[in-house]
């Protein structure tokens, strides 16, 4: 059981407050979705939670140990991080891209041990990439690349998975697939935190929601309790309707009626 806790994170950049007193708690088995408008501080928060940048004040700890007390390698072994629009800059084969996820656990010298090779194989199977394994990663479609990156992130078997906007740029089928896979990883026992813009995906797949508004937490808690049209109006300045359908909750938007344009009267 892994627990990730942040206490009172504050980040200031060039005099502007990016994060203001953000405290959260996440556990293994949970899929926490970070939601909020553009510029609400989601990416900054994720990068700090991943231990890649330091807050001005506040702490992030994994299982009670502050992230900056881990060495880079120790941290890399227990948490994986995917930035927005992850890319591979050289046309290397998909299986080699996935193998890069093993960087923190490779022996200092020499070839890939057989046991690790089997893990790559398993990750390729899990993310439906076997037919693509020798294809250059730069020629993958958006959906395939996102699966390959996810495979790269989990091949090292981290406890914590932090993903920045995993569904951006994906068509509906692949966006659903990506969200579904993150939920499945949480159900396998990983601690998953991801920022998401598609609130229908959030409603259907996230177990918890943390809403950021101008760097502050507007709300956090179990998805069903938190995701309300009042919250969405506050966060995004739109009127949202949440409808229960056969496929699950559906979030739809209308321009906010609070704006005093004549059409809305």
């Amino acid at each position: 059981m892994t627990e990730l806790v942040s206490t009172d994170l504050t980040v200031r950049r060039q005099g502007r407050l990016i994060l203001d007193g953000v405290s959260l708690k996440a556990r293994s088995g949970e899929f926490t979705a970070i939601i909020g408008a553009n510029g609400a501080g989601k990416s900054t928060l994720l990068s700090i939670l991943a231990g890649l940048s330091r807050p001005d004040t506040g702490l992030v700890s994994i299982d009670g140990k502050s992230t900056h007390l881990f060495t880079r390698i120790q941290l890399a072994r227990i948490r994986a991080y995917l930035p927005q629009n992850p890319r591979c800059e050289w046309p290397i084969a998909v299986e080699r891209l996935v193998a890069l996820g093993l960087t923190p656990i490779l022996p200092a010298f020499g070839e890939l041990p057989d046991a690790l090779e089997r893990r790559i194989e398993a990750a390729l199977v899990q993310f439906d990439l076997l037919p693509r394994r020798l294809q250059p990663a730069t020629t993958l479609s958006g959906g395939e690349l996102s699966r390959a990156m996810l495979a790269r992130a989990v091949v090292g078997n981290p406890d914590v998975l932090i993903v920045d906007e995993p569904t951006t740029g994906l068509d509906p089928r692949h966006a659903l697939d990506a969200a579904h896979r993150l939920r499945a990883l949480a159900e396998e026992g990983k601690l998953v935190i991801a920022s998401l813009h598609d609130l229908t995906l959030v409603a259907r797949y996230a177990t918890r929601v943390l809403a950021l508004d101008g760097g502050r937490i507007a709300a956090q808690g179990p998805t069903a309790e938190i995701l309300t049209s009042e919250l969405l109006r506050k966060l995004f300045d739109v009127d949202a309707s949440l409808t229960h359908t056969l496929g699950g909750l559906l979030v739809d938007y209308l321009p906010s009626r609070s704006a005093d344009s004549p059409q809305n009267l």
Partner: protein
Amino acid sequence: MSSIDRAQQSAAANERRRPGILHDHRLTVAVMLLVALAALGLASLLCGSVWLRPAQFFGTDALGSMARLVLFDVRLPRLVLALLIGGTLGLSGAVLQGLTRNPLAEPGTLGVSSGAALGGVMAIYFGLAHHFVVAIPLLGLAGAAVAMSMTFALGRGGGTVALILAGAAVTALMVALISLALNLAENPYAGFEMSTWLLGSIADKSWSQVWLAGPFIVIGCALLLLTGRSLDALSLGEAQAESLGINLERLHGLALLGTALSVGAATGVAGAIGFVGLVAPHLVRPLLGYQPSRLLLPSALAGAALLLAADLVTRVFSGRDLKLGVFTALVGTPFFFWLVVRLRRRAP
């Protein structure tokens, strides 16, 4: 999917598994390159203004004192220098292309070569080279270190394009200072000496120069060889590389120090020899793929072979007139053009 399909798929997967990750052409390519190096090396010992017979070389025929002198004091140091310098250029090209994730990067594009050249020119300009034989390589090394530090200080943190632009700016500064030195040269001989040295050559070098530059080159190359795994992770961009536990500061430090030491010393001894660092990684990529760590050693071998071949051509076909640096530039530039055209076609 039926169970038969599944079984077939897993059998196919197993078959692909072997050539996939563990077994590949790396050994074959290394053997090919070593054989090419041995052949070129032998030719380089035998060919030139004095032609030696293979029988003399292999000891079945007595070696005259003249032949002995040519072989051991002229050809052998030249061969060793060609291997060291070509290897250095090939290796540093592969490391810098991996580091900047830019197929056009090489010591030349990051200002290192021109910095080293400026160091050498300064040594000649101030007459240090005449009093103090190690002045050119030492100042070359210092120039390379200064230039590369400037490039990194200017371009660090701004991504690939910023780094290449910083390299271009530093190169411009170094070239301006070289021109100034040539312009202000006190007598035509000094000016001639500088411009000849700038053209780049490994002719007329002795063992003392091998011993002078060799240790720097070997240490520098050792540092560069340590970057392989970090360069691989960097294929995923800086954010992912850092999340995988890569220390980017250390990686930049290793690349900077390794390149400055090895390329600085190499340029100091041989003058500016361009394009070997650019071409060598591209030669081995079609055989070995694009993963940076797998290219380092093969690229060093390919660089050594390229330089040996170029040196042989200038020696055998043009007498003493054509300088090695001029020849590599003439042959390398069309390749550069081709790379640019190919990149433009690939770019959106």
